[in-house]
């Protein structure tokens, strides 16, 4: 535990609180940069997948952890991002533009979802988002002309200009770049007025309102941003899995995303919850690194359930 002597209010909103953090995060980044030279393609692929889910996690974290709105339907945004990106790519739109359009499109849908979702809170909201995701899944299965229905859809290989990004190393770096910038953007949103309004709404809607925060606006923005991040993850995920089918974005994925965020700690942002993703995949081997034994978690429902028993404070209040 380090105690920081604060001499300035701006210290409270700095991304790196002290030199130690700067140092360790730089080290982490260097290590991540060195992985392509150390690890085999298989592990690079797995790491890229973790990065992608981490981006989706950032999206859900902003909504659930920081605005206090629980979503059981985020797989839908993953799906929307993935299908939109694959569709735009197949129309011949370049990678970067296609990905940006998919993110915007996903945000737009998020904004639309906010209209019914604003009227409800807590468990009602969770179920409203769940209903939304099931509707999206059905649309993906039945809108054959765009999505290919149950036959699925092939995703074109990623490339910028004439440079193909198909190799594991290139894709790893792409995902790392997107994850790092998403984290920076997410952290910057959180220290902006919008982000602090979101936190205020989470802590108490009534006091937030009495301080002049527009609840509807803040929540809608939270939905839009969250959907955007998740859409970005979806676009990258499309390349990762290479072949889209409607049932790859079902309720179980939503629950898994939510668990990822909950297990990592809904109020811990930065790289620390990336850690939870890493645990997700390499739980047993990495368990000893962490001080808290309860953070050893693996994708097993029984253990997840146990985990919440052990550490109930990690989940958001409803």
């Amino acid at each position, binding site marked *: 535990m380090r105690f920081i002597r604060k001499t300035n209010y701006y210290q409270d909103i700095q991304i790196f609180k002290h030199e130690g953090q700067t140092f360790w995060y730089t080290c982490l980044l260097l290590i991540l940069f060195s992985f392509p030279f150390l690890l085999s393609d298989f592990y690079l692929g797995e790491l890229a997948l973790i990065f992608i889910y981490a981006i989706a996690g950032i999206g859900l974290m902003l909504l659930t952890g920081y605005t206090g709105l*629980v979503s059981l339907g985020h797989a839908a945004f993953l799906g929307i991002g993935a299908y939109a990106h694959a569709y735009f790519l197949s129309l011949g739109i370049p990678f970067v533009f296609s990905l940006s359009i998919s993110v915007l499109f996903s945000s737009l849908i998020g904004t639309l979802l906010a*209209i*019914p*979702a604003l*009227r*409800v809170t*807590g*468990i*009602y909201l*969770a*179920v*409203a988002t*769940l*209903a*939304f995701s*099931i*509707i999206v899944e*059905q649309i993906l*299965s*039945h809108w054959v002309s765009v999505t290919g229905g149950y036959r699925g859809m092939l995703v074109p290989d990623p490339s910028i200009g004439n440079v193909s990004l198909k190799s594991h190393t290139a894709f790893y770096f792409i995902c790392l770049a997107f994850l790092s910038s998403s984290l920076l953007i997410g952290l910057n949103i959180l220290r902006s007025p919008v982000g602090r309004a979101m936190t205020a709404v989470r802590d*108490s*809607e*009534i006091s937030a309102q009495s301080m002049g925060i527009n609840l509807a606006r803040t929540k809608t923005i939270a939905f839009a941003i969250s959907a955007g991040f998740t859409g970005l993850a979806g676009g990258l995920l499309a390349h990762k899995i290479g072949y889209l089918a409607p049932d790859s974005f079902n*309720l179980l994925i939503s*629950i898994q995303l*939510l*668990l990822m965020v*909950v297990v990592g700690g809904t109020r811990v942002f930065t790289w620390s919850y990336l850690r939870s993703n890493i645990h997700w995949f390499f739980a047993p081997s990495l368990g000893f690194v962490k001080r808290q034994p309860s953070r050893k978690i693996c994708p097993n*429902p*029984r253990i*997840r*359930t146990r985990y*919440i*028993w052990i550490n*109930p*404070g990690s*989940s*958001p*209040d*409803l």
Partner: protein
Amino acid sequence: MALEEKLEHTQLLISGLSQGCVYGLIASGFVLIYKATEMVNFAQGDLMMFGAFLAYTFISIFNFPFALGLVAAILAMAGIGALIERFAIRPMIGEPHFSVLMITIGLGFIFRALAGFIWGSEPRSLKTPYAGKVFEFDGIIIGHENIIIVLGTLALCSALAFFFKTTNLGKAMQAASQNQLAAMYVGISVKKINSITWAISAAISATAGILIAPVSLIDPQIGFIGVKAFAAAIVGGFGSLPGAIIGGLIIGIGEQFAGLYLPPGFSEVTAYAILLTMLLIRPHGILTSVQIKKM
């Protein structure tokens, strides 16, 4: 033509009614637990599946007489419900609701895995004395199982109403659901009430599972209709038992007619479309009894 259409509509109405009754029953399981403990049990559909499998085991494997197997399965599920409350839910009192929700989701996974482990994943059919028989009435064909579902729901609802209105235990449960602390002060054992609530809720789900077993086969995945039942509970106004049944009927009947008039795929989403519309128009459902808490 007009006559045929009318027949078709009646037919759909009847199958929607029986499907809706099943949704309504599971929904009332949700509502009971929510009213008593303010917790949401996402494993309700899986409890239904498990109950149906237990009935299948008792009747088709152990060769119990139908009625005995039925009662045994319902009692066993009540016991399982009470055990879940004691060992999974009671330690969570005072923790965020969301944690409890996650636990019940986890329990749902466990039940599904367990059912797959014990009975395998291929669909089973429950032998009933009434399956396959039909009434023919003025050109309308009604399966006995549909009638049994509606009658069973009616009987169960009146039994519940009677239980809550007249018996001491029922009144104690109502008191506990209104204010647990106050109930404790007047000498009601709230812990026991919670256990009993879970037992009753699991028993209702088991009944729903047994009722639906002759219509749709039993396999570990049928628990997913719990999600639709949840939508029904919200449409009816979470926290109101008659509302749950009404919501179930609306969704059951809506689904059947969407299957007739709308392109394929729409009948799958009807329940959720109804839910979202309901949340837009009347966020607290048809029969509202939920009090909004100020935080």
